[in-house]
C-alpha cells in the first residue's frame, strides 16, 4: 500500500488528486446519512423548485455567523421566490429537524447542519416536490457509486474465471466460451441493456431493481475482459514456471488460480478502474430513462430524469442538472486514476 502511494505520487499531482478525491467521494457516500440537512424523500410542497439558497455573512455592514433568510413564494406559476430580510436564520450545527432513522435503525431528529423553520437551507435548490437536491445528490451517490462498484467486481470475477478457464484448458470449453462472448459483443451494448431490461417487469421492488441493474451491467461487461484474460493466460501457460509447478505435481486448478491468474491482476486492476465509468453511466442512463432506480429513492440518473424532454423544468430550474456534474466529476477522477495505474503497473516505468 505504501509502495503504491509513493508510485502514485510519482505519477504527478493529478493522479494523486484523482485517487484521494475518489476516496473522499466514497466516504461521503458511505456516511451520507450524517451529512444531509433533510431526509432525501421529505417533500416541502410550498418550496418546489426553490433555487439554491444564498448564504449571507454580512448584514448592515456587520459580519455575522453565516445565515439565510426565509424565502417566500411570490409567483406560484413562475416559481419566483423572494427573500424576507426582516429576520436572520443562522446556520446551526447539529440542528433539530424532522425525525428520521439514520442508517435504517438509529432514530434521531438531529442533523449535522440546518436552520430553524420556516427558513430552509437548500444548498443546491429543490425539485418539483420541494425535496432538497443536495440531500438527494449525496444519498444518490450511495446508490450510483455502489452499483457501479459491485457490478464491476462481479463482472470482472466472472470474466477472469471464464477467461482463465478457457485459456488454460482450451478445447471445447474454449470454443463455446469464445463463441458466446463473440455473440454478446455483436450487439450494441446500449440496445442489449435495454432489451435485457425488457425481459423483466417494469415495476419491481427497489431491492430487486438494484440487483437487476447490477446483473445487467455485469452481464454486458464480462465478455471483453474474458477475451483479454484468455489471451494473457494462453501466453503465460507456456512459461517455464508453470511447467516447473506441473512437474512437482501441482494440480491444474491450483496452477490456474495461484500461478497464472495473479499475473494478470495488474492488467485487471487497471481495466477495472477504467471500466467503472461505463458502469456509472450505464446505471445513470437506465435511471434517466425511468427504467432504473425508481422514486422516491434518489440516484444521479433519476434526479436528471425529470429534465429529459421537459424544457420548462430545464430552463426554469437548471440546478436539476447538478447530478450530471457529480457524474462528470467521478468520471474524471476514475480516468485520472486509471491512467496513473496503467503507468504504475507498466514495467517500463519501474
Amino acid at each position, binding site marked *: 500500500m505504501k509502495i503504491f502511494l509513493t508510485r502514485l505520487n510519482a505519477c504527478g499531482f493529478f493522479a494523486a488528486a484523482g485517487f484521494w478525491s475518489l476516496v473522499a467521494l466514497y466516504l461521503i457516500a458511505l456516511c451520507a446519512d450524517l451529512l444531509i440537512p433533510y431526509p432525501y424523500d421529505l417533500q416541502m410542497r410550498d418550496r418546489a423548485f426553490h433555487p439554491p439558497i444564498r448564504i449571507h455573512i454580512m448584514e448592515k455592514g456587520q459580519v455575522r455567523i453565516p445565515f439565510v433568510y426565509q424565502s417566500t413564494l411570490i409567483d406560484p406559476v413562475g416559481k419566483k421566490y423572494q427573500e424576507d430580510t426582516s429576520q436572520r436564520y443562522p446556520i446551526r450545527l447539529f440542528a433539530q429537524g424532522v425525525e428520521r432513522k439514520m442508517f435504517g435503525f438509529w432514530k434521531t431528529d438531529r442533523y449535522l447542519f440546518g436552520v430553524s423553520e420556516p427558513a430552509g437551507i437548500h444548498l443546491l435548490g429543490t425539485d418539483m416536490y420541494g425535496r432538497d437536491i443536495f440531500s438527494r445528490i449525496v444519498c444518490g451517490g450511495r446508490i450510483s457509486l455502489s452499483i457501479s462498484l459491485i457490478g464491476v467486481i462481479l463482472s470482472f470475477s466472472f470474466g477472469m474465471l471464464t477467461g482463465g478457464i478457457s485459456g488454460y484448458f482450451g478445447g471445447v470449453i474454449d470454443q463455446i466460451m469464445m*463463441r458466446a462472448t*463473440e*455473440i*454478446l459483443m*455483436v*450487439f*450494441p*451494448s*446500449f*440496445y*442489449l441493456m*435495454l*432489451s*435485457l*431490461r*425488457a*425481459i*423483466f*417487469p*417494469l415495476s419491481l421492488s427497489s431491492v430487486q431493481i438494484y440487483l437487476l441493474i447490477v446483473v445487467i451491467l455485469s452481464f454486458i461487461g464480462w465478455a471483453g475482459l474474458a477475451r483479454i484474460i484468455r489471451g494473457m493466460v494462453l501466453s503465460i501457460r507456456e512459461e517455464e514456471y508453470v511447467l516447473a509447478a506441473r512437474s512437482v505435481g501441482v494440480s491444474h486448478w491450483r496452477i490456474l488460480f495461484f500461478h497464472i491468474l495473479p499475473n494478470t491482476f495488474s492488467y485487471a486492476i487497471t481495466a477495472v478502474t477504467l471500466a467503472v*465509468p461505463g458502469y456509472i*453511466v450505464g446505471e*445513470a*442512463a437506465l435511471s*434517466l*430513462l*425511468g*427504467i432504473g432506480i425508481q422514486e422516491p429513492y434518489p440516484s444521479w440518473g433519476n434526479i*436528471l430524469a425529470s*429534465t*429529459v*424532454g421537459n*424544457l420548462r423544468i*430545464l*430552463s426554469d430550474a*437548471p440546478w436539476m*442538472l447538478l447530478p*450530471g*456534474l457529480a*457524474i*462528470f466529476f467521478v*468520471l*474524471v477522477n*476514475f*480516468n*485520472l486514476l486509471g491512467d496513473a495505474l496503467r503507468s504504475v503497473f507498466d514495467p517500463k516505468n519501474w
Partner: protein
Amino acid sequence: MKRLIAKRLIHLLPVLLGMSLAAFFIIQAAPGDFFSQMALNPEISPETISLMKQEFGLDKPVAVQYLYWLKNLALGNLGISFSYHLPVTTLIRFRLLNTLSLAFFSMMLSWLIALPLGVFAGYRERSISDRLSSAFAYLSISMPSFFLALLCVYLASKTTFIPIGGTRSVFDIDAGLWSRFVDYFKHLLLPGLVLAFVNIGWLFRLMRNNFIEAYGSPYIRAAWAKGLPVPQIIFRHAFKNALNPMFTILGLEIGSLLNGAALVEIVTNWPGMGSLMLDAVLSQDLYLVMGSLIIGGVLLIAGNLIGDLLLMANDPRIRLS
C-alpha cells in the same frame, strides 16, 4: 481481395445466426403473453391476431417458432409493431436514416478534428499545446453524453439559435429541397455536436499515441537522414503508418456511436433508433425490440467489415498475406 471479402462474409453467417438466436431467446424470456394483451385492445382486430399467429407460427413449439421467425427474417419481414400498428421494417427504415445521418455527421466531425489534433500533439510531444489538448481529451472522455446533451438543450433553450428536437420545423412542409435540407441539418446540429464532442477525446488519444509510436520508428530516422522535407516525413511516412490501427477503430466506432447516439437521441428528442428502442422496451413491443436489436448488430458487423476493407486499402502487407 474479393475472395477475402467473401471469406469474411461467410465467416459472419454463424455469428449472425447466433445473434438472431440470442435475440429470439431474450424475447422469449420476457414475461406475459402479448397476444392476450393484444386481444384486450379493441383497436386490434381478431383477424390481425390470427394472421400474425399464423405468420409466425406462434401456436407451435418454441423451436418451430424460431424457424418461422428466421424464415420471415430471411424474407425481410421483422413482424408488426404492436404499438405503432406498422411493419417493423417500415418503422426502422425511417428511424435508421436519422440515426445514420446523425452518426455519420458526428463521426466526420470528430475524425476531422481528432486526427489532425492528434498528429499535431504527437509531433510536439510534451509541449504546452500537447498538454492542453490532452486536458481537453480528458474533458471529452469523462463527459457523460446525456449530461452534455441536457446542458446543450438548456443553452439552446436560452438562446434560440438552434432548434431543439425533431427533424424539421413545423412551418415549412412545402419548402424546396435545399431549404428542407438546411432545416434538417439545423436540427441535426445539436445532437451531432454533442456526439462529436464526446467522441473526440479517445480518438485523439489513440491517434496521438499511434503517431508518437510511428514517429519513433527507425524508418523515420532513415527518412530524416535522406533529407526528406518535414511535411513529407510527417504525413507520408509517420501519419500513414499511424493510421493503420485507426481503421480497426473505425469499425468498432460504428458500434460505440450507435450506443452513444441512442442516449443523445432520447435526450435531445431526435427521432432515431435509440428512442424507437426505448419506446419499444417501455411498451413491451417485442418484435420491435427484436428487430432493432438485429439491425443494431448488423450495423456493428458492417462497421467492422468496412474498417477491415479500409485497412486493406491502406496497408499492402495485409492485402498480400
